[in-house]
């Protein structure tokens, strides 16, 4: 078993049962069975960070916690002689009972950014300051859903932190995170979470797939428009008859492709070019976006003035004008192609700009510190 998993998750969760020596033989046997399965479960884990996050709220943890509650209740209610009960004075204190959650708390505290989760745990521990009566403590836990909140609030720390660092219009990536966040805000117990996440797991591919197709549709048009404009420029500059001929043939093919594309848009989706250019997210993909950060929040793109030029080109392509008539008319807008000599320098500037823009976001704060910690340990990402 991984040493970190053993020392921070396995051992504390097993040792805590030693506090209840007077429980029944039946319960002892159930606990021993759980301990064996818990050992195998921990032994299979290789990624401590992922396991530490997924363990709390898992069936195994819920079962262990249930056994612990029963052990505490038995200690409170009686010893292993069925009708012989201990007095309440011998029962474990509320503070000791809540100690089982310290491992989880320490783990999320170490992460540094999981503030909602930290607050949920602190509220849970504060129950020991509110009462030293075990049943009253459980009434508080039940009324305020404090045990559920250490699961849900910590999940929201993760989902909302990631979400904040995403492009909200980019549904293919942001929708799954946003939808999980909504589920955790809505549900109140594990079985409801199970139901909602199963429904969501089935819904996500639909949204992601439709969003991805939309991106592809815009990218196809963007490429054809740029090919058209590039070919037109070849004729405009007329470096040689050969290059002008290449330009002419390129313009004819690109125009044909654009017209076929517009037909495809109409027959497949019932859309026109306006549906692409008027959709805030879809039109971005006409500008050949490239991610500037790890979550694709900021993107390097072609000059957005191109939108006007693209509209003009699409109108030109579907007009009845011949290519020669088009060439004899001065365009109102020009297409801006990507940088050439300044490309590398601009990439550096744009990445620095993205870093600065993202610097206030918790996700990126955490990401940098994680990278720094890894570097200190001699690991480079």
């Amino acid at each position, binding site marked *: 078993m991984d040493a970190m998993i053993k020392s921070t998750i396995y051992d504390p969760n097993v040792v805590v049962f030693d506090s209840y020596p007077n429980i*029944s033989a039946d319960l002892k046997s159930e606990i021993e*069975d759980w301990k064996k399965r818990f050992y195998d479960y921990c032994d299979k884990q290789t990624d401590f960070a992922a396991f530490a996050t997924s363990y709390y709220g898992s069936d195994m943890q*819920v079962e262990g916690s249930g056994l612990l509650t029963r052990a505490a*209740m*038995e200690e409170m*209610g*009686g010893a292993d002689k*069925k009708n012989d*009960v201990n007095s309440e004075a011998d029962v474990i204190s509320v503070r000791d009972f809540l100690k089982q959650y310290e491992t989880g708390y320490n783990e999320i505290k170490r992460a540094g950014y999981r503030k909602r989760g930290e607050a949920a745990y602190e509220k849970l521990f504060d129950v020991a300051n509110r009462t030293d009566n075990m049943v*009253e403590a459980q*009434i508080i836990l039940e009324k305020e859903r404090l045990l559920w909140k250490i699961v849900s609030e910590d999940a929201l720390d993760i989902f909302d932190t990631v979400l904040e660092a995403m*492009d*909200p*219009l980019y549904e293919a990536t942001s929708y799954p995170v946003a939808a999980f966040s909504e589920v955790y805000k809505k549900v*109140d*117990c594990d*079985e*409801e979470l*199970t*139901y909602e996440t199963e*429904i969501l797991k*089935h819904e996500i*591919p639909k949204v992601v797939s439709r969003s991805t*197709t939309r991106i*592809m549709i815009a990218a196809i048009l963007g490429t054809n428009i740029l090919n058209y404009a590039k070919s037109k*420029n070849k*004729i*405009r*500059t007329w470096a040689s*008859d050969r290059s*002008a*001929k290449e330009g*002419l043939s390129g313009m004819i*093919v690109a125009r*044909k492709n654009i017209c*076929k594309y517009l037909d*495809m848009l109409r027959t*497949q989706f019932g859309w026109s070019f306006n549906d692409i250019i008027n959709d805030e997210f879809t039109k*971005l993909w006409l500008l050949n*976006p490239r991610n500037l950060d790890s979550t694709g*929040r900021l993107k*390097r793109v*072609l*000059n*957005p003035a191109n939108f006007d030029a693209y509209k003009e080109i699409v109108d030109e392509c579907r007009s009845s004008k*011949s290519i*020669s008539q088009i*060439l*004899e008319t*001065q365009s109102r807008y*020009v*297409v801006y*192609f*990507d*940088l*050439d000599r300044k*490309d590398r320098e601009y990439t550096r*500037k*744009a990445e620095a*700009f993205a870093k600065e823009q993202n610097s206030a976001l918790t996700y990126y704060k955490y990401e940098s510190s994680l990278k720094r910690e890894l570097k200190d340990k001699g690991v480079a990402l």
Partner: protein
Amino acid sequence: MSTINQVYELYDLMARRCRANKHSQHQAKMYAEIRDFIKDCSSVDESMVKIKNSKYYTAAAHALMLDKFDAYRQAARENKQQELEAIYDERYKEIEADYMKSFQTGYEKKVAAIEKKESNIISAFTSAYNAYIELLCTSMDKVKISQLQRDLKRAYDDITRVGETFEGVAANPFYRELIPANDTGFKEFIEQAPALMNERINTSSDEAEIQKEFDEEWKIISANKDKIISISEGEMSRAKLSAAVAVPPKDRRGKYTYELIEEEV
């Protein structure tokens, strides 16, 4: 000192919370039964002993497991995932008959296999569609057309490999919803895609049409070269290379802003 009233209150609270949640009905029933079962006890100790000596000793944990697998089963039913529903139904019935079966594993592998198959079909079916629509708007480029046909064929074969048919997948409402096409477009996709991936796409009519247009236009523009270049001068003097950074809005209702616009002459 805990009182029997507090224990009663605790079970009552749990019963009421669970009753209000449609996914916690087994627990709601169980907690209500336990609450009523200890109603006449005179002390906490007595209630604990009474529970311990009864069927209610493991009943809460049993009810929790039943609620959980009922939730899985209901979700699979609503998602129309019959194979998954059957697995969860079997699990539910096993646990209903014997609480200790809650801790048996093995069913997860069956679930993972079904989910993997579904994920492969999703990937193949959407790839087929994306290749199809790109084929619809590609002329002349024989290399690209062949590549897209290969993509379409690979996707089709991937569907067959997992034991399904393209037509069967297309008829499933879940897979239909992956595709943003309208009904007419989707029908055309299903009808045309199998033929498109196998047949040699004839580009000769496109080629002939393009050659004819090229010949006619070349005559005109080469005769008007000076005029075209002179018109172009104003346009080309405005042409620049450029890049920008798109910054997303805070929420889905907002718009991108474009920063750091750089030009190169």
